[in-house]
Structure formats: C-alpha cells, structure tokens
C-alpha cells in the first residue's frame, strides 16, 4: 500500500463491505486513486459474517479472498480502518471530507502472532458474532481480517491488561499512546456504501426476541452455523446448549410491515431457504426445518433453489404469518397462528425460532453529511441533487451479495465519470 496524496481526482469510498470493496477495486483498477474508509477494524462487512452464500452454498471466505488479493496488489487503494466520515463539504468534483480515525493501539509491526491476546485477561463482547460470545480485549477481528492486525479494545487502555499486552508483544507493535485523529481528504466523487443492519427484532413485540432466549435472528443463526462462531459450528440453542434440531424460520420478521419496515427486504426468503441446508447438514438424520411465510419470494433466478428445498422432506412450509411466540416449560419457543391454507389454528413448539429479520439501511436516521435524497425506507436514491455522492450496495436498496456487487460496480462507474471530467478540466 503506497501512500498517495488525495486530490479532487480521488474517489472516496465509504464502507468496506462487499459493495465498498468492489467499488474501490473497480475504480482503482481503471487507474483511479481511491481512499476506502471503514469504521470497523477489518474489511468484509456483513458478508464476512455469513457462513455460506446462496445459491451455490460456497463460503464467503472464497469470494472475499479474491477481493482482498486484488486489494493487496493494488497500490492505488488506500484503506483506512476504524475510520468514520464526519462531514462532506464542497461540490461534485471538489469535495473535502472529514474523517475521524479511532486508535487501534496496534501499529503496522503487528504480525498477528496472538501473544497479546494470550496475555490479556479481560473479555469483551464480540460484535463479529453479534455479541453471542465474547473474545479477549486484544483480538483479531476475525480469522481472515484485513488488515491482519490485532486491535486493543479501548476498555482496557490504562489498565494492567494493556501493559500486559504491550509486554507480551515481541515486535513493538503495541502503541498505547495512539490518539483519535481527524483528517481531511480531498475527493472528486464519493461512493456511499455503508450497507445495512438487521432490523431490531426486539421491536416486533409479539415474537419475544430479547425475552425468549431461543428466539434468535437469521444473522445470529449464520454465526451459530459457522465453525468460527460462538458454538464452533454446532447449532445449539442459546438457553441450555441443547442441540436445536426442530427449527422454525419466520419470514417477513419486520419486512413488508407498515408497523416496521415498509419494504420487502428481498434476501430473507433465500436466506431462510439456504439456512434449511445448514440444519440438514448439521443434523442429517433428524434435523427438521419449518418455514412460516406469507409468500416465498425467491428473487431473480433462484426459483430452482426454492423447488429443491420444497422437495426436501425435512423442510415443511406453512403459509402463515406467525401471530405470536410464547415459551413453554422446556424452554421451547411456541409459535401460534393460523395456517391460511385451510384456516387451521396451530400451536407448535420448536427448539429454536429463527426470525428472518429485514434489512434496514445503515444510513437510516443518520444525517449523511451532504444532504442525500433517501426513499421512505431510508435507502439512498439516485438523484441529481446528490451531486457526486453515489449510493452503492445495500445503502441504496435491499440487495443480496450478487446484486450489491452489481450496484457497486455501477456506482464506481459513475464516480469514474466525475473524476474523468475533473481531470479533463484540469488538463
């Protein structure tokens, strides 16, 4: 990574998930200088937190690895982690962006040997695993983190633990005096790829998320299935660690609901169909999946994927939006509702209930610096009023990985056109 001076021919990409990485790489590979800003300590975003992708059921490690390799080999991309955009000033072709960079307390000498992690005793919540587990306060954000560099949790700074970490490091990589910095970056165009967040399931009061331990979200379920997750890849229910073999998936948990998210989040049907494969994979003998749905929207060309799951005898489909969930004396989550095919009432206990939560843009309710036009769900719209700030990926719409990458490539192209104009004007 060569340092380069950002000019108004530079493209700034905000967000280092699959969309931001794609936009940054596509632009850099056409010869543009790019600054990629990521608020977390590592790139990869929510894609890196998946166990598998649909439809091919391969691991995200693979797709991300290709992008990371492209990134490592490209001197035109400058990556800033633990960095957040504070403000955007100026107009298309001439922006000044204020970026706050939080201290990592670990410098580039780090070899990710892990000695500091072993020395530190304090445990903190692990956001990579959606706080289902804890990790040491000196940690590698995830197994394939880029940059491969440890992070010290600010909670231990000034404590004996921080000194222990420093003493354990053989490479002089730990710098406890790092401070938060605010830097200004010049840019001709900005790609806003801040992605999405799962809808707060606790707001769907009748489903009891947060009250019943065995009601979890689909993103948490991804972590349960992953070998790097809190259970080492075993699907165990949170209340008592029992093997969860009878699992319910509840679709439209928050989506398509005027009381929650107005839009269809698009990816959740495919995500649940995919997750039935996890159940079958982990419990080939007696794993059972039940999908409660309004209608299955296997978007795009994934109808065949849906048909294969339908043919799977371990999966049952019930056409019904679950009315409420209760808990029985065994800790099972009990789904109550009416099957609209035949109008029969059901009261069905499950070991574990997975809420296929909707997708909410991370930018929702956040004042994006620069007056961005958003739709009624908070997604960024393509609007001339946005100037040369272009939305990409899930900041613009509810998208799966595949479509997010397409959207990011489109945004990169728009940004390239702007900086090309700038270059022409200056020549």
């Amino acid at each position, binding site marked *: 990574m060569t340092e380069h001076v950002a000019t108004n021919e530079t493209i700034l990409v905000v967000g280092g998930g699959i969309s931001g990485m794609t936009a940054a790489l596509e632009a850099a590979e056409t010869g543009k200088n790019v600054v990629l800003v990521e608020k977390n300590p590592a790139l990869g975003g929510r894609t890196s937190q998946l166990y598998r992708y649909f439809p091919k059921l391969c691991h995200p490690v693979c797709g991300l690895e290709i992008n990371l390799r492209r990134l490592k080999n490209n001197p035109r991309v400058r990556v800033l982690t633990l960095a957040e955009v504070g403000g955007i000033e100026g107009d298309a072709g001439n922006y000044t962006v204020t970026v706050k960079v939080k201290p990592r307390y670990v410098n580039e000498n780090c070899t990710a040997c892990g000695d500091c992690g072993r020395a530190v005793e304090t445990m903190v919540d692990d956001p990579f695993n959606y706080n289902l587990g804890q990790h040491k306060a000196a940690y590698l954000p995830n197994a394939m983190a880029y940059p491969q560099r440890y992070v010290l949790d600010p909670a231990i700074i000034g404590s004996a633990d921080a000194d222990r970490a420093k003493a354990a490091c053989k490479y002089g990589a730990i710098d406890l005096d790092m401070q938060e910095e605010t830097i200004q970056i010049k840019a001709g165009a900005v790609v806003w790829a801040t992605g999405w967040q799962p809808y707060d399931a606790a707001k769907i009061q*009748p489903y009891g998320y947060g009250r019943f331990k065995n009601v979890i979200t689909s993103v948490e379920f991804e972590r349960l299935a992953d070998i790097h997750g809190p259970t080492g890849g075993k699907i165990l229910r949170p209340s008592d660690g029992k093997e969860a073999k009878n699992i319910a998936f509840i679709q439209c948990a928050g989506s398509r609901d005027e009381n929650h998210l107005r839009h269809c989040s698009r990816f959740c049907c495919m995500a649940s169909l995919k997750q039935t494969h996890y159940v079958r994979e982990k419990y080939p003998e007696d794993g059972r999946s039940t999908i409660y749905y*309004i209608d299955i929207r296997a978007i795009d060309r994934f109808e065949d994927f849906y048909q294969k799951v339908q043919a799977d005898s371990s999966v049952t489909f019930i056409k019904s939006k679950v009315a409420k969930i209760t808990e029985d004396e065994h800790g099972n989550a009990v789904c109550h509702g009416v099957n609209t095919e035949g109008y029969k009432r059901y009261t069905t206990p499950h070991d574990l209930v997975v809420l296929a939560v909707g997708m909410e843009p991370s930018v929702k309710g956040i004042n994006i610096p620069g007056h961005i036009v958003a739709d009624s769900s908070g997604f960024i719209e393509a609007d001339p009023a946005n100037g040369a700030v272009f939305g990409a990926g899930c900041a613009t719409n509810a998208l799966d990985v595949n479509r997010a990458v397409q959207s990011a490539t489109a945004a990169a192209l728009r940004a390239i056109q702007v900086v090309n104009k700038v270059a022409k004007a200056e020549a």
Partner: protein
Amino acid sequence: MSANTAVADKYRNNFLKEIEEQVEMGDWVKMCMQCGVCSGSCPTNFQSAWEHPPQEIFMMIRAGKREEVLTTTSMWNCTSCYNCIVRCPRKLPITHIMHGIAEYAHRIGMAPKMQPTRFFSGLFWKNCTHTGRVNELKLSMGLYFKDGFVQGIKNGMAMQAVALGLVKARRLNVMELFGGHKCKDQKGIQSMLKKAYEIERSRKAARMAG
C-alpha cells in the same frame, strides 16, 4: 381512469365494489395480503364460534361470495379487542371492517336473526332508547327468553341465585318490571333520536343510490 386501473377494476367483482361503497372502511378489503396474522391474533376460538376468520372473509368478498359473507355469524363474534389492527402489517382497520360488514348485513336484512350479539344489540338499543335509561331487569329477561318460553324459564332458574343476591344488595329492583325509571326528558331524547335516524337514513339512501 388509466389503462392500469381499468384492468385492475375489471377484477374487482360486484360484491367487492358493493362492500367498498356500502361498508364503513370497506375500501380497505382489497389491501389484505392474506398473511393470517389477524386470525392468529384473534382471542375468540373461531374453530367453534367463528365460521370464517377475518382474512378468510376478505378473501370471500374478493371471490364474490355475497350470500355466504352477509349471512355468516362470524363478524358478529368480534369482541373489538383490536389485536388484529395492532398487528396487521398492512394497517387494515380490521375491527372496524368487521363491524361495518355486520352493520351492512343487518341494514339490508341478511344478518342471522337470532345470532346472540345481533339479538342483544337490538334488544339493548330498544331498551335504552325507550325511556332514556337502561332497564337491566327487562334487558336480561329479554335475553333469557330469546330462544322461547321454556328455555327462558330454565335460564332464569339457572341465574336465580345471582338475581337474589343482586336484589339483596339493592342492585336490582323487581318493581322495574312495571314501567321502570326514566330520564327527565323522555320525549326530548326520542325526538333527538328520530332526527338522527332521519339524517342517517337519508345519507345511506344517497349512498345506496350510488
């Protein structure tokens, strides 16, 4: 009307149009997406009492089943708990629609005559508008004798202990059977109601005329 709405209109059958025009909040019926959360949230166990849960009624309306919908007892069982309205993802005012359909069925004389809710509503209204006060003794007796004299006596006997307790506690006056207490301006109340009826009738006639 655009080409699109014209096509959509073709699929709105006459009964759906009738409901949209005549029933309070009836124009919401087409918005239902058949998720079933209203039925699942309903506290009445409709498998015995409800013939058709709300989203089935909406589907029946859209399928043009006029006779079945207007003569069913289902919407008369609604307890107005509002659980369905709170949970409906499309924000349909389901409780109000249920009452609206019931009212319409009653208005055009298709509601089941002896359905207890409907019967009691009529009884209550007559009872309290007559004198301007509710005569509880006549009201409960009226309900006891709904299914004939013999059943009435049986119901009365079953409730005997409660009635005696109420009399002892001075919550029930046996003399109410003869005339009963009235409000101060009985005639005023009645002329007020008469006027209200007239206004309602003319409004509904205008709506019927389309």
